[in-house]
Structure formats: structure tokens, C-alpha cells
């Protein structure tokens, strides 16, 4: 089973994402902000990170840039999942190395479609 790290400061979102992804046969770890997620990556690198943008301590974009700058990391697939839904944010995320981008609100079909586009399913 593939491991997905769900990074979101909202407990509700993490719970919804976990339920959908478990149905799609992923193992789940959770992190509450970018810093927490980085530490999780150092312990156990996930196959994919589902990443919120706006979070306290370290936001999603900072996390992504930090991960992509690390040459000692086995690079994970990163899928943004955020309420930021304008073209400028999307471009910034993709240029920083995000593989896909989900605009909230999301549902199972969107997660499934995006995950299969990046070859996870």
C-alpha cells in the first residue's frame, strides 16, 4: 500500500481526506502544518503528500520548496489541496514543483481523478 501524508491544519479536512484515501487503499499519516510535515518526511518518506496551502508555523508552499530543495530526499509526489483557486496561485505551486493541484471543496471523484493522473492509481 502507498503512503499518503495528509497535511492540513483543519482536523475536519484531515478526517475527510483520510476517509476517502483509505477507501482508495492508501496508508495515511497526518501533519498539522508544514514543519510537522517536514519532520514526518524525515521519519518516513510518503509516496504522496496531500498539501494545504494556508497553515500556521510553515505554510504549504514553504514546505514544498523546502522538500524540493533537499537532495537527500526521495522526492514524493505533491498534490496541493487548497481554497486558493486562482491561476496565479496554481502557477506558483506548479513552478515550485507541485505535481497536481486540487481546489477545495473536493470530493472522492476529484481526489481519485487527480491521483490517477499522477500515476498513483
Amino acid at each position: 500500500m502507498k503512503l499518503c501524508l495528509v497535511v492540513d491544519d483543519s482536523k475536519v479536512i484531515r478526517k475527510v481526506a483520510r476517509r476517502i484515501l483509505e477507501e482508495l487503499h492508501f496508508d495515511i499519516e497526518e501533519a498539522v502544518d508544514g514543519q510537522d510535515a517536514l519532520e514526518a518526511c524525515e521519519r518516513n518518506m510518503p509516496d504522496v503528500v496531500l498539501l494545504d496551502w494556508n497553515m500556521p508555523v510553515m505554510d504549504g508552499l514553504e514546505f514544498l520548496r523546502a522538500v524540493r530543495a533537499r537532495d537527500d530526499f526521495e522526492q514524493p509526489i505533491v498534490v496541493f489541496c487548497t481554497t486558493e483557486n486562482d491561476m496565479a496561485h496554481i502557477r506558483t505551486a506548479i513552478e515550485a514543483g507541485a505535481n497536481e493541484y486540487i481546489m477545495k471543496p473536493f470530493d472522492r471523484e476529484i481526489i481519485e481523478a487527480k491521483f490517477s493522473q499522477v500515476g498513483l492509481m
Partner: protein
Amino acid sequence: MKTEDFDFLSGMLKERSGLMLTQDKIYLLESRLTPLARKRGLDTLDALIQKLRMRADQGLIRDVTEAMTTNESFFFRDNTPFDLFKNHVAPAMEKARGNQKRLRIWCAAASTGQEPYSLAILLREQWHKWKDWRIEIIGTDICTQVLDKAKAGSYSQFEVQRGLPIQLLIKYFKQEGDIWRLNDEIRNMVTYRPFNLLDNFIGLGNFDIIFCRNVLIYFDQPTKSAVLNRMAKTLAKDGTLFLGAAETVLGITDEFRPVRGQRGLYVPSSGEAEKLMGLG
């Protein structure tokens, strides 16, 4: 709903659109036609049925037919047919039509446009190959309302996230408030027109590729046969036909045969399109 009312409505829908409704779809009649009844100033679905029985109001009949024909669609739906198109069908046509540089594609149930636009995007992604070709993508649907939406090329945030890779969203769409609108370069590649698959196909011309996915499932056996046989006449001998994953030609027509190992892909029985596609 009374049995005679169901029989009346399902008979009318079959005659108009080929749509086959069984008794277990009564809920669908109620959920889709009740809002239509209200829009027409009628209190109940019964009142709507009364009205239809009293007089063959063509406008009302058309609205009922449109409300009942399923219109769910998304970009690159089911992936596989689009991979086949990109990797086998389009290269085969590039070879076979290399002299005349002309390609005609028909999406026979275009709905809100995602399927024809997905094909247009795939061709646009290899534009160096196709830029001096005359490519026609014709999208038809029985429902004029969905075609209006298709022509506009405007989709909700939800719609652009189902099947469309983010890179293609960035490349081919403009954001207008809550709406994502396809660029003109893609929109202009597709023409739409209302068309009923039960009518004759004269006037559509001939095609190299036909997409007719998830439509035949709503038709009874003789209607399926008739539609497929007429499609065979409009399709080039080295052309291809895409059907939905749950659909088949087996036992319905001898005009097409499935391409082995390629679900949903069919070729004229009299031709040898597999070789051309490298699938022989």
C-alpha cells in the same frame, strides 16, 4: 406514478429519443420532470402528464426529452479511449490521411462538450503535426441546452477538476470569476449542432473517427442495431469507432468488430484498421 402514465411517458420518450425506461426508473422521471412541471406553472407531475396527453405540445415534449436524457460528462472520461486516440488512432490517421491532410471526427453524444474538447486539446498538444491539416470535430447531441453550454466552453471549478490535468487547465483555460473558460483556439476547433441519432445521417458527411460512448445503453436492441449500421455507412473503412466500456457490438451488428485487447475500440468489419494502428 400510475402504470398508464409511466407507459405513456416512456412510450413518448422512446419514440422521440430512443431512450428506454424501465419501471425501476420511475424515480428518475419524478426527480427530473417535477422541476420542469413547476417551471411550466404546474403544481405536480400529474398535471404535466395531463397536459401532454391533451395536446402534443412540441415545445413541452422537447423539454421533457431534454430533461430525461443523461448529460453527465467530464474531461478525458475513462482515460483509456483518449490514450488509444493519442497513441494509436491519431498516428494511424496521420499516416493514412497524410496526403489530403483532412480529418473528420464525430462526437455523437457531445453533451456539455468535454469529450470533443478533450480530443481538441490532445491534437493541440501535438500541433506541430497537425497545424496545416483541416481538422473538423463535430459534436452533436439531442439536447440543445447542453450544446449551448458546450459552445460557451465555460465550466465550473468542479467540472475542470474531474479528469483535466492541472497543466492543461493552466495552458488552455482562462479564469473568469467562478468560471473557467476554454481558450478560443480550442473552442474554435469544435462545431456543435443538435442531432437526434434516430434521424438519418445524411447531411453529416463522412467521418474518420466516431465517438459514441454511453449512449447506446439507453436504446433497445433494434435501435442499437439501426444506429450502428448507419454509423458504419458514414465511417471510413480504415476508421475507428469508440463505444462506452459497458457497450458492445456483439450480437447487435456485423458491421463492426472489436479490436482485440482494446476495450471500447471498434473497427469496420470489412477493413483492416488494426494494422494501420499497430494493434493487429
